[in-house]
């Protein structure tokens, strides 16, 4: 039996969207505008890349405002850090950053409306109540819509220090609401950066070097320029010599060969007619903020040599990140030492919408529009590059076809702006899939060696992690199991590289959890313990008698998700033994996640059939959408753990499109993912990233159950296929 009550609500929401909104909004606070006919427009301040902030952030406002959700219309806000706050999508921060200010905005607007009603009715404001977009005075029986008091309310000074609701009184928060852009998505309306178009807009693409460590030597564009629709071919420097880069101004290549034409296909065709000579760039220099010089090595790197180099570095002394007790002595006195090394490749983000941006730059001002996660970080760089004051730069944020961290980096915005300035026309810069995959800012390549010392009674007496990577390591020295073991040592090292790297869904954690959670599973087995019970024992120790002072997790909340997943998955239920079960848990980005994955082998290939997830991210604002996000993170984790990887040969990416870079598909995704949230009243923390890292470990542990082999090399499918051939 299917209920369609929710569809009725959607129909109404659609109708509101279609109404001609009146020009005269009564702006109450930066986020809220109310019309006389009681339509409540709430601005979404933060960029939307699929985490559903377009819906869930306005829900927070609507809750304190006591608005009727059916009257709410959501609009993407402009870039305006004064009115709309930090406007940054990343680090699972949207809810943490905006929870309090949006509640305060809603509460202030409600108070202003109540004040306006009190004035009109000539009654004390304390006697006015607000509910579902209506104001009431019980004694006199008077009532009115928010809209009818909006103009008066707008004249009342914005109150500060409002008392916020108790969680038990939430009216919108904790009630699932449908994606406010759902109808537009399923009917193909223009929403994304690539859909952005203005009259007279040209299309631009960049021909970049075929390998990291190469640069442009010379080119002949005579044939390309003869092609229909082609306007110009030219070189453009991204940054002039000595340009001070901000932390998110990462550049893969500096000398850009640009083709500009009328249409996408014409530019694609003309690119094939370019005759280009590339040459090794040699060592180059980046000037980072504070005039810090960073040398970028010129070597043309290959995966095989990278792996060898990582092995060499792993045996060198490294930087000590944390030390508790006397780990050296404990390892010396150990009855048994277990040592394992884990490796993982570079990963490409592969957002479904390739990188692109619109720019229209004139001598006086600039308009840029498109998909990006961090407008506030791009604006100062744009101002410097274009030599314009920041207030002459308008940044519009479109819906993003995925982001996963990549869209926090602004290079494609700067490229688009510089190209528009040069050709003196509105331009849309577009990367093809090949450009996007081979000209990336990737998840780094990582390795880590874990060692555990057991005494004669199989007690864990020391723990050592030494991690490295190209060009950074993934060691979080103060995370679990730090704090639970008397003798503990964490060390890190890194190898510089010209392959550009950056944030990728749960940066560093996405490898740390894979390695550590696989190792803990192996360790539990060596100690003759159940893997969940073993983790709970360590967490008990960390809570009751923590080692060290800088432990950055809450042992109770960590234990809670493990207990919840144990219960919900029927961990000890013999009926579940038909599956190969793997468990893992992790804490990152302020939230806790644990998964049990149930795997089966069919035709020699592993399939995760079911997953049970337990999450503690505090108050869950939009439960069904939050469930969707966890389910997505689980699928993303399975896909990247089993299949993900970008390799290099002489500096060139060996994968350039989806025929070579395997992405998880429908038949490989679980048929069931049960998501359970710990119920508490803790202020919400993030959810986009935390469920992702432990999936890798759970998959590895299930593969072990299935095959009898431990998995140390990602992507796991390569190790599996190698071992089954051997």
């Amino acid at each position, binding site marked *: 039996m299917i209920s369609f009550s929710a569809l009725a609500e959607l129909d109404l929401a659609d109708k509101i969207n279609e109404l001609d909104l009146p020009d005269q909004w009564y702006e109450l606070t930066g986020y809220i505008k109310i019309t006389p006919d009681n339509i409540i427009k709430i601005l979404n301040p933060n960029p939307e890349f*699929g985490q559903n902030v377009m819906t869930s952030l306005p829900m927070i406002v609507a809750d304190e405002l006591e608005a009727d959700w059916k009257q709410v219309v959501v609009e993407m806000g402009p870039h305006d850090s004064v009115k709309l706050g930090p406007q940054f999508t990343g680090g699972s921060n949207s809810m943490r950053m905006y929870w309090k200010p949006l509640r305060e905005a809603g509460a202030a607007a409600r108070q202003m409306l109540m004040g306006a009603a009190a004035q009109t009715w000539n009654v004390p404001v304390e006697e006015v109540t607000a509910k579902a977009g209506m104001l009431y005075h019980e004694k006199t029986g008077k009532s009115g819509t928010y809209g009818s008091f909006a103009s008066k309310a707008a004249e009342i000074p914005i109150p500060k220090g409002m008392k916020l609701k108790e969680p038990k009184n939430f009216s919108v928060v904790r009630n699932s609401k449908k994606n406010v852009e759902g109808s537009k998505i*399923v009917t193909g309306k223009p929403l994304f950066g690539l859909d952005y178009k203005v009259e007279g807009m040209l299309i631009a693409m960049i021909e970049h070097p075929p390998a990291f460590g190469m640069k442009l030597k010379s080119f002949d564009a005579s044939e390309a320029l003869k092609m229909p629709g082609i306007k110009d071919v030219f070189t453009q420097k991204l940054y002039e010599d000595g340009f001070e880069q901000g932390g998110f101004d990462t550049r893969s290549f500096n000398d850009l060969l640009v083709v500009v034409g009328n249409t996408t*296909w*014409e530019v694609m065709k003309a690119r094939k007619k370019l005759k280009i000579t590339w040459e090794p760039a040699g060592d180059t220099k980046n000037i980072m903020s504070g005039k810090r010089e960073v040398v970028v090595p010129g070597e043309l790197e290959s995966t095989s040599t990278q792996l060898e180099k990582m092995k060499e570095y792993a045996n060198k002394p490294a930087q000590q990140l944390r030390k508790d007790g006397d780990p050296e002595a404990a390892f010396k006195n150990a009855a048994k030492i277990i040592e394992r090394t884990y490796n993982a490749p570079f990963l490409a983000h592969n957002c*479904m919408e390739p990188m692109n941006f619109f720019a229209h730059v004139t001598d006086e001002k600039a308009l840029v529009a498109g998909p990006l996660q961090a407008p506030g970080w791009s604006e100062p760089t744009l101002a410097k590059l274009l030599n314009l004051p920041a207030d002459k730069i308008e940044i519009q944020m479109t819906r993003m076809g995925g982001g996963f961290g990549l869209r926090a980096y602004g290079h494609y915005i700067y490229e688009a702006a510089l190209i528009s300035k040069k050709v003196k026309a509105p331009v849309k810069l577009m990367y093809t899939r090949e450009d996007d995959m081979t000209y990336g800012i990737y998840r780094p390549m990582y390795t880590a060696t874990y060692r555990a010392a057991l005494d004669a009674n199989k007690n864990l007496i020391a723990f050592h992690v030494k991690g490295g990577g190209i060009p950074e390591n993934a060691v979080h020295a103060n995370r679990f199991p730090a704090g639970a073991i008397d003798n503990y040592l964490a060390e890190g090292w890194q190898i510089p590289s010209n392959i550009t790297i950056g944030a990728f869904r749960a940066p560093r954690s996405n490898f740390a959890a894979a390695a550590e959670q696989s190792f803990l599973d192996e360790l539990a087995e060596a100690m003759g313990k159940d893997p969940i019970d073993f983790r709970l024992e360590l967490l008990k120790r960390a809570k009751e008698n923590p080692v060290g002072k800088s432990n950055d997790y809450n042992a109770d909340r960590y234990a809670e998700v493990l207990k919840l997943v144990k219960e919900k998955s029927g961990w000890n239920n013999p009926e579940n033994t038909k599956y190969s079960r793997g468990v893992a848990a992790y804490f990152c980005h302020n939230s806790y996640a644990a998964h049990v994955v149930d795997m089966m082998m069919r035709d020699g290939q592993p399939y995760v059939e079911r997953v049970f997830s337990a999450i503690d991210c505090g108050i869950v604002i939009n439960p069904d959408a939050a469930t*969707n996000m966890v389910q997505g993170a689980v699928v993303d984790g399975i896909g990247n753990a089993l299949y993900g990887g970008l390799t290099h040969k002489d500096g060139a990416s060996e994968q350039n*499109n*989806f025929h070579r870079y395997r*992405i*998880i598909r429908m038949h490989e995704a679980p048929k069931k993912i049960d998501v359970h949230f710990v119920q508490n009243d803790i202020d919400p923390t993030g959810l986009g990233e935390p469920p992702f890292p432990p999936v890798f470990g759970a998959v590895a542990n299930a593969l072990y159950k299935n095959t009898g082999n431990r998995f140390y090399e990602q992507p796991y499918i390569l190790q599996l296929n190698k071992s089954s051939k051997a």
Partner: protein
Amino acid sequence: MITLNINNKNYNVDVDPETPLLWVLRDTLGLVGTKYGCGMAQCGACTVHLNGQAVRSCVTRVSSIAGKKVVTIEGLSEKNDHPLQKAWLELDVPQCGYCQGGQIMSAAVLLRENKNPTEKDIDNAMVGNICRCGTYLRIRKAIQLAAELQRKGG
């Protein structure tokens, strides 16, 4: 000049005959619901119907389709009420949403030909459509729900 029939409307377009249908839809006609994802029929974001069959418009030359009927996501239903669109909203399938038009177009052919698809049928029909956000579970459920709606005449 090539005459195209798209969503039951005729268009005369003056483009290079090699141009993939995708770019004619997006650049020439402004029908941007059909998405670019890979340009080599690997991801399914550009799926449209050509004489009722699901094809990847990124590898379909415009010269090869004169006289054939093209349906895009914008033309899938007159009132945005195709059972798949209803089911997609009911189950709140999308995350970023970029691939979903292509997913729906692939599923629409499956549902027309198979009123009661099994899980295996769904796997086979949808294997060519990537969702990077990982909404496969909900896509599967939405197809099953749409099949149910369709059987009930809705």
